C-alpha cells in the first residue's frame, strides 16, 4: 500500500531523512517510532504531499504523490501532530468543511459527523467555536474529523499527545475497528511504546533520519534481546535527549499566545 525507496530530504545542509526504505502492506497497522527530531513528521509530510522529497521514490496505492497528488490525497486521511482546526468555526462547521473538501455526500456527511462527534463525546458542544475547547477536546475533534471520510490509508502523527487514558483507549479501539472492518491501512507515530506494542502489526524505528530497525514488535524485542518495546527502543536509539530547534511557526505561535494574553 505504501512503498518508500531510498527516500531523502535535506533542508540546506541538514539531512532530515536519510535513505529510508520500507513497505506497508494493505490492511496493516504500521508504527513509525523515533526520538524527537528523528525525521518522523518530515516523512509523513512527504507521504502526504506537503513536502517534496529531495530524492528517492514514494508510491501510495501504486500512485506517485508527486505526479498524482489529487488522486493520492483522495486516498488518505491524516491527523496532524500540531493543531489544524479553524478555531473561529464551531466543531460542527469544522466537520462540515472537511466533509465538503473530501467530497463526502451531504447525507452521509451529516450522519457520520453525528456518529463521530458522539463517539468522541463532543456532540453536546458541537455548536461551540473550536477555539473555546480544551487541548484534549481539540485533539478529539481533529481525530473525529480524520475519520469522516473513509480513507484507504490513515496517517496518525502522534494522535494521543495530550489525551487522557479514556480518549486514548477510545481512539485505539476505533482505529482497530476501522482497520478490521474497512481494511484501512494505518501509519502512525507515537512516543508511547506500550501503544505501539499493543496496536501495531509492524514497527519501524528511525533515528537521525535513518531507519535503524524494522519488524514486528516481537522481532524487534528479540533482535535487541529486551523484554519491552521501550527497552528495545532505548537500546536502538540511545539514552541521549534530543533537541529540536523551534521553527518559525513555533515562534510565531508563541508570539500569538503572548499577544492574546495581553489582549484579554
Amino acid at each position: 500500500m505504501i512503498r518508500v525507496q531510498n527516500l531523502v530530504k535535506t533542508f540546506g545542509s541538514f539531512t532530515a531523512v536519510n535513505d529510508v526504505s520500507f513497505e506497508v502492506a494493505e490492511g496493516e497497522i504500521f508504527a513509525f517510532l523515533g526520538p524527537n527530531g528523528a525525521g518522523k513528521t518530515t516523512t509523513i509530510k512527504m507521504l502526504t504531499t506537503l513536502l517534496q522529497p529531495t530524492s528517492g521514490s514514494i508510491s501510495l496505492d501504486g500512485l506517485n504523490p508527486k505526479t498524482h497528488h489529487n488522486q493520492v490525497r483522495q486516498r488518505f486521511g491524516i491527523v496532524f501532530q500540531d493543531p489544524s482546526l479553524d478555531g473561529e468555526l464551531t466543531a460542527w462547521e469544522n466537520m462540515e468543511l472537511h466533509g465538503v473538501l473530501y467530497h463526502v455526500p451531504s447525507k452521509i456527511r451529516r450522519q457520520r459527523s453525528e456518529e463521530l462527534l458522539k463517539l468522541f463525546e463532543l456532540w453536546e458542544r458541537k455548536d461551540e467555536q473550536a477555539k473555546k475547547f480544551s487541548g484534549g477536546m481539540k485533539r478529539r475533534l481533529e481525530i473525529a474529523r480524520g475519520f469522516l471520510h473513509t480513507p484507504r490509508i490513515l496517517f496518525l502523527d502522534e494522535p494521543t499527545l495530550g489525551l487522557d487514558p479514556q480518549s486514548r483507549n477510545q481512539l485505539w479501539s476505533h482505529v482497530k475497528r476501522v482497520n478490521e472492518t474497512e481494511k484501512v491501512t494505518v501509519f502512525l507515530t507515537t512516543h508511547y511504546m506500550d501503544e505501539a506494542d499493543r496496536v501495531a502489526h509492524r514497527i519501524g524505528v528511525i533515528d537521525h533520519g535513518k531507519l535503524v530497525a524494522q519488524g514486528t514488535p516481537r522481532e524487534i524485542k528479540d533482535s535487541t534481546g529486551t523484554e519491552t518495546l521501550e527497552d528495545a527502543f532505548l537500546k536502538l536509539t540511545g539514552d541521549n535527549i534530543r533537541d529540536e530547534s523551534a521553527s518559525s511557526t513555533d515562534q510565531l505561535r508563541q508570539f500569538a499566545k503572548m499577544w492574546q494574553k495581553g489582549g484579554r
Partner: protein
Amino acid sequence: MSAIYILWWRELRRYTRSRAQMIVSLGQPLLYLLVLGSGFGHVFQKAGMGNYFQFISPGVIGMMVLFSSIFSGLGLLWDRQFGFLKETLVAPVSRLQIMIGRTLGGATVAVIQGLIVMILSVLFGFRPQNWLAIPAAIGFMVLIAVCFAALGTAIGSGLQDMQGFQLIMNFLVMPIYFLSGAIFPLTNQGVVLSFITRLDPLSYGVDGMRNVLGAPNAAFNPVVDLIVLAAFGFAFILFGAWRFSKIEI
C-alpha cells in the same frame, strides 16, 4: 466547485463572527473621511477643485476595500500559524480551487466593508450624481477587492512570520493607498509622481468610482479604468495561484 464554495463560505463566516473587528476596522476610514474630509475642505474649495468631501469619499471607500482585501489574503499567514492551512492543502482539491475560494471569500468581505463605508459617507453628506451609478461603483469595488485579495495571497504564500507582515504594511499597503490619488487629485502632478501613480492598480479603481459616481477631478477615462484594473486583477490571480501552488509546510 463545492470546495470553492465552502472556502468562500468560511471567509464570510469568520467575518460575521468577529463583529468587534468589523467595527474597529471602520475607525481609520472614518478618520480620513471626517477629519481629512472636512479639514481640507476650505483649501480645496479655494483652489477651485470642488467639494473635497465629494472627492475623497470614493478614495476612502477604495482604501477600505484595499485594506480589507489585502489583509484577507495575508490571512494565509494566520492559517499557516494556527495550522488550518495544512488541513486544506492535504484535501483532494486542486490548489487553484482553494486559492480561488479564499480569494473570492476575502473579496466578498472587502466589498461588504466598502459598502458600509459608502453608506457612512452618504450619511455624512456624500451625494453621487445619480443613484443608478451605485451598481457600477460596486463593480469597481469588486475588481479592487479581487485584485488585492489575490495580491495578498501571493505575498502571504511566502510569509513565515509577523516581521514580514509589518514590512508589507509599511512598504506596500500604505504606498498603494497614498499613491492611488485617493486623497489628492492625480491631475496636474509632476512627471515622477504621475508615473508612479499610474503603476498603482488602486489609482484606476478609485478613479473609476469617481467617474461613475460623478465625483470631482477624475483623471482617466472610465473605460481605461475598467480595462487596466481588470488586467491587474487577472495578472494578480495568476501570480497568486502560482505562488500558492508552491507552498510547502
